[in-house]
């Protein structure tokens, strides 16, 4: 039975979902764009973020402390992974890196099961955003409004960091030509570790942010990886702007698909991806394919 479609309410749902997708995928896109590494273990960093968040909330009682500290912990894990495992593979074919990060998925899955057990877990929303708010005809959990605001601020901050600061310029130079940058006195080794750790921390951050909305379990990393990869492909490999626009498009497409065409909604994300890749094989804002 068709309802009079609640366009505004569903558009808000789509925005919240899209921003969440952006947060899930931005670490993946940064690591790819800066280091040329396809990090399949990105979902695992998300998962470590949720579980670290759970532990920190249990210890401190504060969601906000967890939101601050869990990404730092996950970033540290990322730094160790880059230093210890990924670094020796930079000069090897890309497939070796893909295999390594693929293997890490299973390693982290077992690690989580070992430390936290196999039960389904979830982070309660912070008390400040536990209720719901009504905007016009639409009702939305206030936590989702917070996610929208947080995600958009993050997008702006990341853009400023990479495009407008000296640190961003150094990173871009290192990515463009590592040897030349090293010749100019930039420690590219340390920079690569830093970028990978930062991408991992963003994955962990998205885990804490998504924790009150989506449940976590030891294989959640794989579940999260697929939409994140799709966003990166749609937006253009390695493009921050593409990651944001791609997330927002997919968020709306999925939400309106579920609302209006529930029978085919599970295909919607793939339909959007196929259409965009057909028209622009490099993605919306991707570098021209050689």
């Amino acid at each position, binding site marked *: *039975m068709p*309802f*009079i479609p*609640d366009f505004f*309410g*569903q558009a808000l*749902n789509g925005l*919240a*979902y899209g921003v*969440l997708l952006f947060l899930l995928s931005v670490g993946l896109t940064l690591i790819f764009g800066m280091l040329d590494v396809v990090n399949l273990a990105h979902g695992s960093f998300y998962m470590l973020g949720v579980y670290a968040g759970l532990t920190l909330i249990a210890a401190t009682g504060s969601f906000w402390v967890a939101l601050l500290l869990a990404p730092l912990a996950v970033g540290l894990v990322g730094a160790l992974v880059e230093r210890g495992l990924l670094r020796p593979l930079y000069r090897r074919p890309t497939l070796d890196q893909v295999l390594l990060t693929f293997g890490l998925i299973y390693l982290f899955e077992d690690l989580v099961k070992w430390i936290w057990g*196999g*039960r*389904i*877990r*979830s982070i*309660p*929303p912070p008390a400040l955003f*536990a*209720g*719901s708010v009504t905007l016009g005809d*639409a*009702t*939305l*959990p206030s*936590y*989702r409004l917070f996610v929208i605001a947080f995600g958009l601020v993050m997008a702006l901050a990341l853009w400023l960091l990479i495009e407008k600061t000296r640190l961003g310029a150094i990173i871009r130079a290192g990515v463009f030509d590592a040897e030349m940058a090293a010749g100019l006195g930039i420690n590219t080794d340390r920079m690569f570790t830093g970028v990978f750790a930062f991408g991992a921390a963003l994955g962990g951050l998205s885990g804490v942010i998504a924790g*009150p*909305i*989506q*449940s976590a*379990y030891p*294989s*959640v990393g794989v*579940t999260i990886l697929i939409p994140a990869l799709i966003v990166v492909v749609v937006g253009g490999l390695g493009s921050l702007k593409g990651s944001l626009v791609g997330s927002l498009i997919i968020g709306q497409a*999925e*939400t*309106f698909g*579920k*609302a209006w065409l*529930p*029978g085919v*909604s*599970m295909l919607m994300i793939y339909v959007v991806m196929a259409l965009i890749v057909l028209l622009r094989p490099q993605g919306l804002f991707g570098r021209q394919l050689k």
Partner: protein
Amino acid sequence: MGALTRRGLLTGAGAAAVGVAAGPWVLRSWAQGGPIKIGVVLPYTGVYAVLGESITQAMELVFARENWTVAGRKLEMIKEDDEMKPPVGIRKTEKLIDSDRVDILTGPVHSGILMGMRDKVHNSKTILIVSNAGADAISRGRCSKWIFRTSFSNWQPCQPMGGWVAKNVAKEVFQIAPNYQAGKDMMAAFRETFLPAGGKVIAEDYPKLGETDYAPYLTKIKQSGAKAVFAFFSGSDAVNFVKQYDQFGLKGAVKLTGAGFLTEPDVLPAQGKSALGVLTGHFYTPVLDNPVNKRFVKDFKARYGNKTPDGFAVQGYDTAEVIIRALKATNGNTQDKDKLVAAIARVEFDSPRGRFRFDPRTQNVIQPFIYVREVREVPEFGLTNVPIDKVADVRDPGTGCTLPA
């Protein structure tokens, strides 16, 4: 005996005499010799591993009580992880039947695995006691003389809820369940009693299995004007749905009801207070006030680090009780499968859920009660399902099952 005698006839009268004389001795040595092998196909990894764990723990509780011995024979459990993947589950089933030659098979959790293993079990005349998977078909057109079920058919926890919701909650209901067979079966079972009681299904929706964002559906529910929702979700879907339902502010306005799996103890802690007030139909809850259940809860908690048993554990408990009691009745004889099947069919005992017995028409359990339960916070148990009403003797209609009565 029959085979021995026939071979005896073929090889001459003298040999026949030896054969007949040897027969009883050979049978007895079989009966008292090697261990009785129980093959178990359950998920031990992945999200549903907690279900496999509960079922297994309760089985081991019962077997340990019997000192892993029945009628003088040792009991041996051979556990296989089906990973909730039908191809894996079917391969493990074939291994247990063909190379381990198990005497009794139990499991699985996944209905797809059950339907996939059904023909292998039936054709090899292996006794299967289903300890979770609820596919209605196994009590209907696809029933088998060799298959029993101690858990439930998907129809059982939902059908009584229809009339109850129409009478006690609301007549305008929105139905929602994952887009697969069990989801659709449960929604149809609910309607069987809901529509005749004057209920009206305002709308229904079938999100994909493993959905993470229910926002579009929750907005539709809010708009639909429905007074209540009847939902079936399990695992992470149940956590996401119940939490998001609460976060969208629907809980106060539209009563959430559903199949028992929506708020079972595998998902309840992650749902937290979002689950308070949810009404579900199920055959068990750990707070049931009967002596068998009280002892079960106490023993289970003592053995497994204070873990409260759930419905899945009761399924494991009842499966093991059925095995023990049937084997005692045949004095440990697993060779005469027809006798063993007959013994299983006759088993009757007091289970934590009430008086346990199989329906002779389908070999599916007759649920002594389907309890209508409300999630509340109770001193001894914390967040739990408290029974507020019950419907007695719920048996699957068994349409299309032609087992001899």
